[in-house]
């Protein structure tokens, strides 16, 4: 019994030390993964006439289903390394501005998100989720900021029923994650060295994943090509 306990303790100590070592090295000696997402098809951006709240919303808006930038880069995709813990806990913010959700895709760690209304008119925040409780709350002009919890990993669709064209996404991702820029590039910083799974998600083009070998202190490039559905 006594012997068993000692061995158990020793094993625990050794694994604990190993884990400590791994995480510290990971955090200090992690690498950057530069994810490039490409799309070969045509962009899907629709123009729509607006006939209400035109002072704030303008008379025309665009529905951006698939935004393709320079060099066939796909914007508004989310790249993540789910295995990389300890990502920055900066508070996520989404703004209802000009009757659009800005940014179109917000990336956040499970936790709290700040929802702003900079328009001085009524919007509502209506989420479509299965893992998190769904939310449908009015955000009148005098309610400039609201805070909501999204604690489970999920890609949450967000709409406003007052302006039916308004559509945004909140990517609740536990690992290191970022949205691609207009050139289709997302940089994932501080990803632990070693084999890591990289996932890419896009609201209309779906998901893909690849494994990369991350080298501490250097930039590893990985490229994805999304297919039309």
């Amino acid at each position, binding site marked *: 019994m006594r012997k068993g306990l000692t061995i158990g303790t020793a094993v625990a100590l050794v694994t604990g030390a190993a884990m400590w070592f791994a995480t510290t090295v990971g955090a200090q000696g992690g690498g950057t993964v530069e994810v490039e997402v490409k799309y070969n098809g045509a962009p899907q951006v629709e123009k729509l006439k607006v006939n*209400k709240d035109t002072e704030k919303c303008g008379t025309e808006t665009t529905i951006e289903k698939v935004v393709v930038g320079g060099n066939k880069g796909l914007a508004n995709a989310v790249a993540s390394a789910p295995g990389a813990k300890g990502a920055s806990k900066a508070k996520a913010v989404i703004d209802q501005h000009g009757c659009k959700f800005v940014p179109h895709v917000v990336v956040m760690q499970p936790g709290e998100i700040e929802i702003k209304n900079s328009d001085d008119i009524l919007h509502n925040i209506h989420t479509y989720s299965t893992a998190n409780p769904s939310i*449908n709350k009015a955000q009148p*002009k*005098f309610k400039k900021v609201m805070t909501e919890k999204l604690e489970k990993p999920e890609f949450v669709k967000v709409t406003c029923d007052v302006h*039916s064209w308004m559509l945004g996404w909140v990517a609740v991702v536990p690992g290191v994650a970022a949205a691609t820029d207009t050139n289709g590039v997302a940089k994932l910083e501080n990803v632990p060295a070693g084999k890591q799974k990289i996932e890419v998600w896009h609201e209309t083009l779906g998901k893909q994943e690849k494994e990369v070998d991350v080298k501490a202190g250097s930039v590893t490039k990985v490229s994805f090509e999304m297919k039309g559905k």
Partner: protein
Amino acid sequence: MPKPRDFTKGLYKIRTTANKVPMDQDLFKIITDGMPGTSMPPWAVLPDKDRWNLVAYIKTFAPDAFKEAPKKLDLPKDVSSSETSLKRGKEMFEAIECHKCHGTEGRADGPSRPELKDEWGFPVAPANLTKRWTFRGGASRTDIATRLANGVLGTPMPAFLDSVEKPEDIWHLTNYIVSLGPERPRYATLITVSATKDALPDDPNAEFWKKATASAIPLMGQVIVDPRNFNPVIDLVTIRAAYNDTEVAFHLTWDDPSETKGDGKQTFPDAISLQFPPQITASTERPYFLMGDASEAVYLLRWQQGKGVGEASANGPAKIAPLQGGEVSGKVVYTNGQYRLVMKRPRIAKGEGRPTFQPAVFTPVAIQAWDGGAGESGTRMSLTSWYYLRLEEPQSNRRFVIPPVVAILTLAAMFLVVRAANRAR
């Protein structure tokens, strides 16, 4: 028609809880009382025990959704209605901009209305706040305050508990909504046409009409002949009527969320008609209520958006012939989701196929109405069976009591329409 609830989703629109999970009592109440404005009937006829068993059974369809315990919603402390509360309620209604969906006067005519969809992608109309009896979750103050605090799950109606300036604003808003209309409509069985020596004003907003007796008449979707109308928009028309020696005038008020001339493809002109037998006799025989038939015609005094007031003769909904040369006139106004219309014609018939209106005679009348903006035209309409109107005797200020036989006839006719409607479904 609202889609039947998919029990497997565990998503219940009407609940008194602070989270998604309804209380057993919420389900029990829906089973017992039904849901107004939907095809969910009340099951109060079932014994209590069976209804509780039904609650338990429904929950087994979505066990995951019921894993979480329901969290009882705590409403802010009740504030009773008063002038100051109503003022604050109206201010909040405007500051929050409820009118974006519900319209300035609450008649479901807001600018966002045409695009509203539920979470299953089906169009959903905002509630008409002047018709509390149609609220899905009930018409009491607590029902309304709970809906405002929680929203209506699965629909665009958002929750406001976190969005008002102060928690008690929920009650000020509730009091304001309650002030917009009666808890239940008081339907008339007999329409009185009052006698006057004055001229009958064409203007629907004239002071004269504000003082006239109003009779509320319920309308139903036409579901007897194809194409049917299972989801009628116009469910109530209020009639005021008056006559003098030479003329008779009808003042009609009804809610319609959009003033529509129609494109002839998806939308059609809004319209309404009053139907009478072409001759008014003492006999209780009347033409077929659905615009007559091949053997017996009806007379229509009607109005159509863009065309104005006219007369027609019909031998069924597919055989309508305009009557020329009548001396009809009238005027319509449309404000904030409501039509007000005056239709006027000579009291004594001028020309064939038209009835003469005589004092103290029971005159059969029926109504048909179309919301062209919702795609209603032809047999896709709202209607009533035969009602009666009566021109009061001049100089008599005694209120007329309806003979029981007339009341029974009216009720029986309504019953037949309802039964036909239920069979057709």
